[in-house]
C-alpha cells in the first residue's frame, strides 16, 4: 500500500536526513565552561614549548663582524671606494669554545634580492643546462641577455650578474702563528638545487658548452671557471652560485658561505684570537648596505632567534590569564543564570 502511494505522488520530496536538513550534527556552543580547560591546556603547552625554544636559542653562539668599512678607523675603510682588488683583514677573539659545527655566513643588509623584476631576471631553462637557451636566452633576463656585441650572456639575468663575490679566509692565531681554519664549501646549497634544478650541459670539457657565449658583465671570470679544482663544483652547480641564486626573502639577510667541520675545528672554534681576511670586491654603497660575516652554530630550530620562544611564552601566559578571566565570567554569569 505504502509503495503504491509513493508511486502515485511522484512529486513528493525524498524524506531523507540530507534533503530534510536533519543530518546528525555536532553543535558546539562556545561558552566559558567549555573553554576554560582548553585555554589552560593551550597555555601550558605553549609555555612549555616556549621555554624549550628560548633555552635552545640562548645556547646558540653567534659572532657577527661588520666589515663594510664605513668607519674610517675600520681596516676595510680603504677598500670601500677602491675599485681595484683590495684585501683587508679583521681580528676578533672568541672567549670560549664556539661549539661546532660552526656555520660561516656572509650577510648583506638593505639588499633587495626580493625585488620582483630582479628575481625574475634569470632563465631557468638555461640554468637547467638546456643548450638551446645558451644561444637565445629568455627575454626575462633583459637587459642582461646579451652584451654590447650582441653575444648571449650565460648565465643571463640580473640575479646571476650581481653575484656576491667577496671571499674570506679565516685564520686562527695559535701561539702567534696564523693557522688557516679549513672551510668546507660542500653541501651548503640545497640538495635539490644541486642535483635537480641546476645542471651543467653534458659536454666535456665544460668550457666547450660555453662557446659563443659571454660571461655576465660584472663577473671577473666566466661561470666554468668558478671552481676549476672541482668538476662537481663548477659551472651552474657551483655551490656559491646556487646559494646566491636562491633569493633571500627579506632585505637584511645572510647566506651560508662555508661550514667549519674539518680537522681540529670539527668540534668548534677553540677560544682564542682569529683573523678574517676579506677579498673586498662587492660594492654596497649604492644601496646604503652593510656587509658582515656571521659565525654561528645551529640547533634543531635553526639559528639564534629568541622571538619564537618569547612569543610562545607570552601567548601561553595569555591563555592562562584568559582561563582565569573565563572562570570569573563563568562564576558570575553562569551561576547567576542557574539560580
Amino acid at each position, binding site marked *: *500500500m505504502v509503495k503504491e502511494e509513493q508511486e502515485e505522488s511522484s*512529486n513528493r*520530496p525524498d524524506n531523507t536526513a540530507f534533503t530534510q536538513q536533519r543530518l546528525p550534527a555536532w553543535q558546539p556552543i562556545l561558552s566559558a565552561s567549555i573553554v576554560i580547560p582548553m585555554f589552560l591546556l593551550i597555555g601550558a603547552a*605553549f609555555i612549555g*614549548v616556549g621555554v624549550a625554544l628560548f633555552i635552545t636559542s640562548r645556547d646558540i653562539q653567534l659572532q657577527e663582524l661588520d666589515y663594510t668599512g664605513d668607519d674610517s678607523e675600520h681596516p676595510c675603510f680603504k677598500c670601500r671606494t677602491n675599485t681595484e682588488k683590495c684585501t683587508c683583514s679583521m681580528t676578533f677573539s672568541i672567549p670560549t669554545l664556539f661549539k661546532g659545527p660552526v656555520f660561516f655566513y656572509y650577510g648583506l643588509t638593505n639588499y633587495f634580492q*626580493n625585488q620582483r623584476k630582479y628575481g625574475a631576471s634569470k632563465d631557468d631553462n638555461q640554468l637547467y643546462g638546456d643548450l638551446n637557451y645558451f644561444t637565445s636566452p629568455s627575454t626575462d633576463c633583459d*637587459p642582461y641577455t646579451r652584451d654590447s656585441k650582441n653575444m648571449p650572456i650565460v648565465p643571463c639575468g640580473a640575479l646571476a650578474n650581481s653575484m656576491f663575490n667577496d671571499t674570506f679566509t679565516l685564520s686562527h692565531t695559535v701561539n702567534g702563528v696564523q693557522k688557516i681554519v679549513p672551510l668546507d664549501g660542500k653541501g651548503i646549497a640545497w640538495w*635539490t638545487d644541486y642535483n635537480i634544478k641546476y645542471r651543467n650541459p653534458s659536454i666535456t670539457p665544460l668550457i666547450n658548452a660555453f662557446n659563443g657565449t659571454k660571461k655576465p658583465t660584472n663577473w671577473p671570470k666566466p661561470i666554468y671557471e668558478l671552481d676549476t679544482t672541482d668538476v662537481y663544483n663548477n659551472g651552474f652547480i657551483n655551490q656559491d652560485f646556487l646559494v646566491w641564486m636562491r633569493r633571500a*626573502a627579506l632585505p637584511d639577510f645572510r647566506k651560508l658561505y662555508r661550514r667549519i667541520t674539518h680537522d681540529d675545528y670539527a668540534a668548534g672554534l677553540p677560544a682564542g684570537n682569529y683573523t678574517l681576511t676579506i677579498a673586498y670586491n662587492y660594492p654596497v654603497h649604492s644601496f646604503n648596505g652593510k656587509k658582515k660575516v656571521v659565525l654561528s652554530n645551529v640547533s634543531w630550530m635553526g639559528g639564534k*632567534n629568541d622571538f619564537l620562544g618569547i612569543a610562545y611564552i607570552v601567548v601561553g601566559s595569555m591563555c592562562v590569564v584568559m582561563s582565569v578571566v573565563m572562570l570569573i565570567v563563568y562564576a558570575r554569569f553562569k551561576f547567576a543564570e542557574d539560580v
Partner: protein
Amino acid sequence: MTWRSPLALVRDALQGQRARERELRSLVSNLPYEGQEKGKQPNRFFLSNAIKTTKYSLLLFLPMNLYEQFHRLANLYFVGLAILNFIPVVNAFQPEVALIPICVIMLLTALKDGWEDFRRYQSDRKVNNTPCFVYSRREKQYVERRWKDVRVGDFVRVVSNEIVPADLLLLYSSDPNGVCHLETANLDGETNLKQRIVVSGLGAANLGFEPESFNSTVVCERPNSNLNHFKCFVEKPDKDKVGASIESLLLRGCTVRNTNHAVGFVVYAGHETKAMLNNNGSRYKRSKLEQKLNVDVFFCLILLFAMCLIGAFGHYLWLESLPGVPSFLVPDSNGHLDVPSLESFYMFFTMIILLQILIPISLYVSIELVKVGQIFFITNDIDLYDEETDSRVQCRALNITEDLGQIEYVFSDKTGTLTENKMVFRRCSVMGTEYPHKENGKSAFPTSPQQYSSVMPFTVMLKSVGHQQLPRSRWSLEAEDISPPDTQRHGRRRKSKVAANAHSDAAFSSPLETEVIPDQKLLQQISRAESSGGRRDGNRSFDPHLDFFLALAICNTVVVSAENAHRQRLIIKCVSYCSIVTFCYAVTLTQECTSPQSSQMRNPLETFSSLVKKAGAFFQRDKRNRTLSEDPVIDSAKTEDEADANRLRTCSLHAPSQNGSTIVEAEELCYEAESPDEAALVYAARAYGFILLARTPDSVTVRLPSGEDLVFEVLDTLTFDSNRKRMSVLVRHPVTKDYVLYTKGADYSIMELLGTPYAENFSGTEKNIAADTQYHLDCYAKEGLRTLCITKKVVSESTCQSWLGERKRAQAAMECREELIMQTAVQLETNLTLLGATGIEDRLQEKVPDTIVALREAGIHVWVLTGDKPETAVNIGYACRLLEEEDLVINMSCKNKVTCTAILDCTLEEVRRYRDDPRNAGTTQNISLVIDGNTLDMAKSPDLQERFVELTKHCRSVLCCRVTPLQKSAVVKLVREKLKVMTLAVGDGANDVNMIQAADVGIGISGQEGMQAVMASDFAISRFKHLKKLVLVHGHWCYTRLANMIIYFFYKNVAYVNLLFWYQFFCGFTATTMIDYWLMIFFNLFFTSTPPIMFGIFDKDVSVEVLQGVPELYRTGQGKGEYNFLTFWIAILDAFYQSLVCFFIPYLAYQDSDVDLFTFGTPLNTAALFTILLHLGIEIKSWTLVHWIIMLGSVALYFIVTLAYTATCVTCNPPSNPYWILQNQMADPMFYLIVTLCTVVALLPRYTFHVLKNSVAPSPLLQGRQLDR
C-alpha cells in the same frame, strides 16, 4: 528549392515584417495552395509552429555566451585586469597565469549555461516532433505531421486527451452542440474544464466539416499574451462577418477533454501563440542583501585603491632613498631606468593586479551556487509539500531566498489564502425568511478560533449511510461521522489516509464538506410548493422558493461533465484532484431502470427527510459502537481504493450488491466551476432536489425534485465581471415559455437594482423582503459568511428580442467590444426581483491562526487585504487571530476626507498616548487597525499618507476591507517606499497579481483560483500554513547563511591579500609575492572556496523546532540584520589583524636568517589557510558529516596539491620555482611551530570574543540554540 535573388529575399523579409506588425491579420486557408512554392503561400509571412527556446546555437555558443557573461561588471573588471597584466611595464605575474581565475570562473558559468541550454534544446526537439493531424488536400484526409510542420492557415484535427499544437480557431467539434472541452492546466494551472464553442454560422457544423470548402477569410488581431482575450471575425465569401472570441480559440498547450475530436484553423503558430507569449521564464529580482553587497564591494574597491596608492607611494620613496643604482634594480631592456615617479605610477597598476582578489571575484559565482543549494533544500522540504495537490513549494525567482529572512510586513489576501476557498453553503434566506440549516452547523467544525489552532482532534470519516430503495430514483448519501479524539486512533487513521487519499487529517479539506444537509423547514416549504403547484404546471414556477433554487441551479457557468472516461489521466493521477480541486462531486445516481412496481409514486422530498432522519439515527448508533463499526469501513475503503482508485465510487459499488435484482447504471456528475461559490450553490440546489444535469451553450437541463427534467433554453449568459459584481443568465422557461433573467451577485450591487417587490399577489407585509433580506445579509456577514443575492426578472418577448439583437452586434464589434457588452448587460439587469440570499462559508485553512500568530510574534506586521465587507472581514480577522480580544482595535471608516483627517490625527494621538503610557511600557503594543477601501483611498492621498504610514507603523496588524486589486498593490507600494521595509505579499487569485508583483517577495498560493498568482510570484506554496516554515525557518536560514557567508568571503579575501600587502613593505613595494603564483591562485580557487559555499548551504544556526516554536528569533534578520555596516567592518578589521599576525610572526621568526623567498612564504600560506578555515570553523554552528568532509578535505587538498606541485614542477613555471619547498619545510620543526603560533594568535581574539559574548550577553539566537539541547 529554387534560387531567388537576394533583393527578393529582402523584399520578402520586409513584407513579412510588415505583415506581422499589422494590427489585423487576414488569414486564408492554405489548402488551395498546397504543394506550391513558398513564395506563393498566402500565410508565408507568419511564424511557423516550430519553437526554439534555446539561447545559443552550437556554432555561436562561445561568442554569445562570452558576450552574455561580459555583461557582468565583475567579469569585465577581471578581464580588464588580466589584459593589464599583458602590458610589460605593469605586469605582476606571468600574463597567462593571471588569466586562470577568470577563465575557470567563466568556464564554469559557460558549462552551466550550456547544460541548461542543451536541456531546453532537448525539450524543444521533443515538442517540435510531437505528432499531430493536419489536413492534406492531396490525400483528402488528415495526415500525421510534426508540430513543427504546422503552419498558419492549416486545418488541424485534435482528438480527446490530445494537446493542442497551436492556437486554433475552433471550426468543428464532434460534440453535437458544437462544444469542445478544454483543460488549460498546462497554461494557467486551472483544472476545471472550459468550454469552447465552434464559430457559429459557418455552415452545417454538425454534418462534419470539409476543410476544402472553407473559403472564408479569418481576420484576427495581432498576437498578444492575454490568455483570456481574443478578437477575431470570420468573413465569409458573401462578406458576412461572424465574430469570434476567446470562446472559440483552442490554445496551444491545452488538452482536449470530453470531446471525441475537433477541427481548428491555425491562427497563431509557434512563438506567436498565447502560450509561448506567456512563457517568460523565471524572474530576476535583486535582493536587498545583494544591493548591500554591492556597496561593500565598492568599499573594497576604495580599500584596494588606498592600498595601491600606498604601494605606489612607498615604491617612490624607496627608489628615492637609494643613493645609487644597486645591482638589484633592473633597468628595462634598453638598459634605461625610468625616473622614480614614473616607476611608481606603473607600480600603482601592478599593485592593482597583485591585490586584485581584494574584490572577491568568486563571490558572485559562489552566491549563485549557494542559492542553488538553498533552493534545492527549500523545494525538497517535505513539510512544504502538499499531499492533496501533490505539489512542492516552487521557487520561481532564484535569487531572493535571503529576502525571506528579512520580512517586516506581510500583506495577505483573504479568500483562498487564509481561507480554503472551498465554499460551503451554510444558510439562506428566501423571501425574507431565514433558514438557518442547523444540521449543517452540526457536521461542521467548531468555529471558535481556539479550536482551529489546536491540533485537530477530529478526523472525518466517510461512511456510506445506506441506500434507499426508491421507486423512481435511488439515492445514496454520504454523511460525515465525527470520530473520537483518540490519539491512538488518530495514528491509525493516518495510515488509512494513505489508502484513501482524499482523507486528510484536517477535516477542512474533506470533499464531503460540500455536502449540504437540507433545512427541514425549507424542505417542507418546497414540498408544499411542489404539491400545491405540482398539478398546475403553468403556475408552478411562480413559487419563489422553487424559483430560488432554480436560479441557484441555472444561474452559473458550472460545467457538468458526466463522462469520466475522458478524464482518465486525471483520475489515475490523484483521486483527490478530481474531488477537491475541481469540485467534481460524484453523485452516484442510479438511473431509473426500475422494477415494475415503480408506479408507487413517492415524492423524493419525503425520501430526503426520511433519509436525514435515518442519517441522524445512524449517527447515534454509530457513536455508541464506533469501535465495532469503524475499522471494517477503513478496510473496505482500502480495498475499494485498490480496486478502482476512486473512492467516490464506493457507494455505487455498494449499490449492486444490495440491489442485485435491479440493473444499475451508475453515472457520476462532475461539477466544474470557475469559482467555488458557484459550485457551492449548485450543490445546495442539488441537495434540495434541483439537480443540474447538463449544460450546453444553448440549454440547461435541471431535474426538479419531482423527478421531472426541465430543459431551459439559454439565450445568453452575462458573465461575471468585477465591475458589475454580478452575473446573469437569460433563459426561456420550457413550461411557461417566459423569458426569465436570473441574476446573482454581491448584495450591494444587487440591492440598488431591485425593482418592485416580487409578484403583486403577495400581501403588503411581505413587501419588506428587501429589508428583511438585508438584515439577514448583515447577520451572515457578521458570522463571516460570504453573501450573494439571488434575483429574477421576467422579460417580455419583444424586449428580449431587441436586446438579443443588440447583444449580437456588441459581440461582433471589433472595437470597444468589452464596453459594448458591458453596456448591454447593464441595460438588461434592471428592475430585478429579489428572491433571496445565500450565506456561504469559506473556512479558514488549517493552521492559519497559528501561522498568523507566529508571524506576529516574529515581529512581522500582518496586513490582510480583502474585498469583503468590514463585518465579514473583522469576523475572519478574529477567527484567524489577526485581531485579538485584548488588542486595541482602531476602526477607520469615514465618508469624506475631513473626517478622515480628523480620525487619523485623533488615532495617532491616541496611539502615541497608548505607547507613552507607563503602564504599557513593558508590554508590546498590540494595536490593530481596520480600514475600508474608501477611507484607505483618502488616507493614501499625498497629504495624509505620512500620517497614515506613521499610524500603521504602530499597528501590529491591519485589516483592509472592500479593497480593489489596484488598491492592494498601491498599499504595498506605499508601505514599501515610505517605510523602507521588506514586504511580502501572499495571494492566490488574479486579483492579487498586482500586489504580488509590487512586494519585495511575492508568494502565490496555488489554490482554487488558477495560476495567475503563481505565475507572478517569486515563490509558490500550496497552503497558507507553509508560509510559517518558509519564512520563519527557510527565510531565517537562507538569510543568516548567506549573510554570514558573504561577510566571511570578504574577510577571507582581505586577510589573504593583506599578507601580500604587508610583504610589500619588505621588498621595496615592487609587487613581489612570497608565494608561488599558481599556489596563490589555487588558494582562492580551490583550497578555500568550497568551505564558504558549504557554509552558505548547510549551516544551521537554530533548529527547525526552535525557529518555529520561538518565532521571536526571526527578528534577528529584520531591518539591518546580521549583515550590516558593523559586522562588515568588524570582519575587515579582523582580517587586517589576522593578516598582520600571520605575516609578522613568521617575519620575526625568520629575521636575520638565510631564509629564501618561498621558504618564507610557505608557512605564511599554510598559517593563512588554517586561520581562514578555522575562522570559518568558529562561525559554523553545526557540524555535520558534510562539514567535516569539506573542511578536512580542503586541508588535505592543500597539502596534496602543493606537495604534488612542488615535487613535480622543476622548470614548468619560470621564473617562479617552488621546487621541493614544502617538502623541505615540512621536515623542519620550525614550520609547525610557526604555523601553530600564527593560527592560535590570529584566532584567539575572535574566539575569546565569541566565548565572552556567549557567556555574558548571549544573543537570542544562542539562547535558541541552547533550547535545542
